[in-house]
């Protein structure tokens, strides 16, 4: 699709999902290369979040495959897909109850094969978890709110905590569902810089967003969905002027 | 012999049906398991007894039991449900548990823990239809149940209040948007359920001519099983499950020994929860309930 010989980090081939009589996703194919930021855009209800749900194993596609670094992960149990290296954030932020920011980072650690490390008090048995959590805390500039209950934080910080949780386990691919929804220009810019930093550190990012300015300034490649069908894909400057895409958006405007 | 057991089972089943309906009125509409229903049943029995001992006629005793239990149910709704209506449903369930503990203690102190007995058995006359012998009391239990269920059916299916209750059961938020206000209606649901439980209490108390503060516990737990088997979201499931479990219990006791009957009843309940959680009469499998 993007004409590279490089093995894609993520590959969806002909993914189709039918719910009852409705075809939520129809023959969707896309790929994300290593160190690439790819965006999925499209009008509401196009199937963008459904695509994410297929990737994370929440939905089993009626047809098609999902591959991570060449290995099939289609409809595997969610926790195995997470351990394979795919993390995600949610459209409506899903943080853990009363847990503090710090606890979020501790619980999201890379899976530890040694049960003893997980059963003994973390302070004594798992210094690398503490180090990693501290690392992520600093990377995302959350030191000041480390011990605050995550849910009590302002919206923008909550989004950052969710992102911090998602990157703690050093994923290969990060799925971000509307990461800057509801943010002002400055906050969104901060997130954009963050995401570029993450990309440069080796992460691939697949994101869903409605904020066109944000998307155009950030993504290396775009896929456009409408009614579960891929209607266009290409570089941002190509998509911006694509008549099919404009039609789809205008067609949905009330 | 079999037919006789059938009749006994149906009588027991009628009582289960009433209490299961009581449970499922609140559970089906509000999603709350009202653990105090067992004690509402018990209190209804005591109120009915008090009426009979005061030489009042049977229908008055029945009404006394129903009214008393309904009143207590209303109190529980105000204190034990209203403050928790937005909390996870397990919280109001635990608060009704608190009420159940209080009510049983109060009853024990008011009336003593020894069985309260009627001087003579009420309506002990027996009628014989072929191989089957039925006591007048059994007939009253069956008859009263039929009448109460018919009344409930009328209220739920034919009145606007009943329609509103069903609307809330379907979807609370949509109901509110349509102008159905949940507040007074949950009070109605609780009161109705209290009345049914109270009626069952009077009927059982009179049937056995004795009552203790502990009658509610075992029968309450069984009624939960009946509700589950019939379908927690479909209150009419109790009409089938009640007689079914009543007969099953009586048959098991007659042919297997009284000890394994509980095993059978709860085993059935768990099987239904696992294999067909919507119950026998429930429709398509819906969401199984919110988290704790």
């Amino acid at each position, binding site marked *: 699709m993007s004409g590279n010989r490089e093995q894609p980090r993520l590959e969806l081939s002909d993914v189709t999902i039918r719910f009852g009589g409705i075809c939520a996703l129809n023959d969707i194919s896309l790929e994300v290369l290593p160190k690439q930021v790819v965006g999925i855009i499209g009008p509401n209800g196009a199937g963008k979040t459904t695509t994410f749900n297929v990737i994370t194993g929440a939905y089993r596609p009626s047809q098609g495959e999902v591959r991570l670094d060449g290995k099939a992960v289609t409809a595997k*149990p*969610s*926790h195995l897909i997470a351990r394979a290296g795919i993390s*995600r954030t949610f459209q409506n932020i*899903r*943080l*853990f109850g009363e*847990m*503090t920011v*710090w*606890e979020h980072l*501790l*619980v*999201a650690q890379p899976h530890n094969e040694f049960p003893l490390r*997980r*059963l003994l*008090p973390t*302070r004594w048995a798992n*210094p690398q978890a503490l180090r990693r*959590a501290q690392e992520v805390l600093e990377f995302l500039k959350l030191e000041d709110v*480390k011990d605050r209950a995550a849910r009590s934080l302002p919206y923008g910080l909550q989004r950052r905590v969710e992102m911090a*949780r*998602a990157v703690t386990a050093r994923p290969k691919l990060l799925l971000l569902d509307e990461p800057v929804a509801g943010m002002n220009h400055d906050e969104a810019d901060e997130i954009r810089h963050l995401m570029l930093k993450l990309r440069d550190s080796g992460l691939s990012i697949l994101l869903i967003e409605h904020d066109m300015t944000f998307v155009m300034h950030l993504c290396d490649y775009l896929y456009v969905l409408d009614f579960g069908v891929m209607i266009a894909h290409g570089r941002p400057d190509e998509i911006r002027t694509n008549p099919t895409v404009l039609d789809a958006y205008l067609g949905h405007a009330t | 012999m079999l037919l006789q057991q059938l009749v006994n089972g149906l009588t027991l089943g009628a009582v289960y049906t009433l209490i299961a309906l009581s449970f499922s009125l609140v559970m089906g509409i509000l999603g*709350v*398991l009202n653990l105090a229903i067992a004690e509402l049943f018990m209190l209804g029995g005591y109120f009915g007894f008090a009426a009979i001992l005061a030489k009042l006629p049977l229908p008055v005793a029945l009404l006394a039991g129903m009214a008393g239990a309904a009143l207590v149910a209303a109190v529980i709704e105000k*204190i*034990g449900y209203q403050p*928790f209506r937005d909390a*996870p*449903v*397990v*919280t109001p369930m*635990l*608060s009704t*548990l*608190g009420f159940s*503990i*209080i009510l049983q*203690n*109060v009853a*024990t*102190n008011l009336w003593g823990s020894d069985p309260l007995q009627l001087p003579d058995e009420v309506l002990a006359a027996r009628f014989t239809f072929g191989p089957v012998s039925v006591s007048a009391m059994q007939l009253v239990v069956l008859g009263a149940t039929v009448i109460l269920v018919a009344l409930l059916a009328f209220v739920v299916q034919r009145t606007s209040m009943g329609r509103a209750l069903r609307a809330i059961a379907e979807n609370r938020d949509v109901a509110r948007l349509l102008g159905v206000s949940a507040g007074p209606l949950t009070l109605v649901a609780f009161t109705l359920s209290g009345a049914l439980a109270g009626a069952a209490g009077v009927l059982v108390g009179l049937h056995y001519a004795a009552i203790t503060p502990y009658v509610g*516990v075992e029968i309450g*737990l069984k009624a939960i*099983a009946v509700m589950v088997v019939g379908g*927690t979201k479909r209150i009419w499931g109790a009409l089938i499950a009640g007689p079914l479990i009543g007969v099953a219990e009586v048959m098991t006791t007659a042919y297997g*020994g009284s*000890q394994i009957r*509980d*095993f059978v009843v*709860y*085993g059935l*309940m*768990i099987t239904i*929860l696992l294999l067909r*959680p919507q119950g026998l009469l429930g429709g398509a499998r819906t969401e*199984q*309930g919110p*988290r*704790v």
Partner: protein
Amino acid sequence: MMSTYYAGLLADVGILLLGALSVYIILATGQLSLGNAGFMGIGAYLTSYLTVTTGIPLTLALVIAAAASGATGVVVGFPALRLKGIYLAMATLGFGEMVRSFFLNFDAMGGAGGFHGMRHVSVAYIWTWAAAILLLVALLERSQVWLEMRAVRDDETAAGLVGLNTTTIKVGSFGFAAAVAAIAGGLFAHHHVYIEPGNFSFERSIDFVLAVILGGSTVGAGALVGALLLVMLPEYLRFLAEWRFAIFGALLIAMLLVRRQGILDRSLFGVFRFRRSA
């Protein structure tokens, strides 16, 4: 030298503590079990059988019973995965009743007549177990696995997506809790030296839940506070003896209204707060 009466009370506290902990462990994953008296009963009968009929020493018998009950807990935990909230509560209630009914019929161990012959065991022995398990839970609360349990309780989907195997965590909690309840049962049996199925009824399961809800449902030490409350408070309110159940019922309702997490919670427990970093 403690009077026998107070020794008995203390023993009851220890046993109730263990039962309450068994509810707490399962509750930590977001599941409410109303049938833990069933696991207690299994522990009581199995331990008694081992010490009385086969002469195995008590400590070993307790370990074996805990393991067997733990296995039962795992077996129960799997179908429990399919149920949520009140439906799970009802199913566990049914389970508890089924266990009681089973022992009612189990004539090999007395059936309705009960079982006796156990050797009486001291309060000190009971509290060795109770304290050890409380300490174990306290340590576990500071571990990774407890954070994972809390995450599963808070948002099971998100927990799965950070790589947590929610099945292992939820089923495992049932297994662990069942083992702890079994030890409570074994100790109960050897303290009262007579057991009958009625000892392991729904009321017992409710006692456990009551202790946790009142004492504090978010920290293990809450179970200790709850157990102390339920056993000791009636002693201090002797003049209200006849009304003590009503008082507990009222306390439960009041607690739910005013302080849902119970008496003890994490912030009250601030000294041992998890957050201390390396």
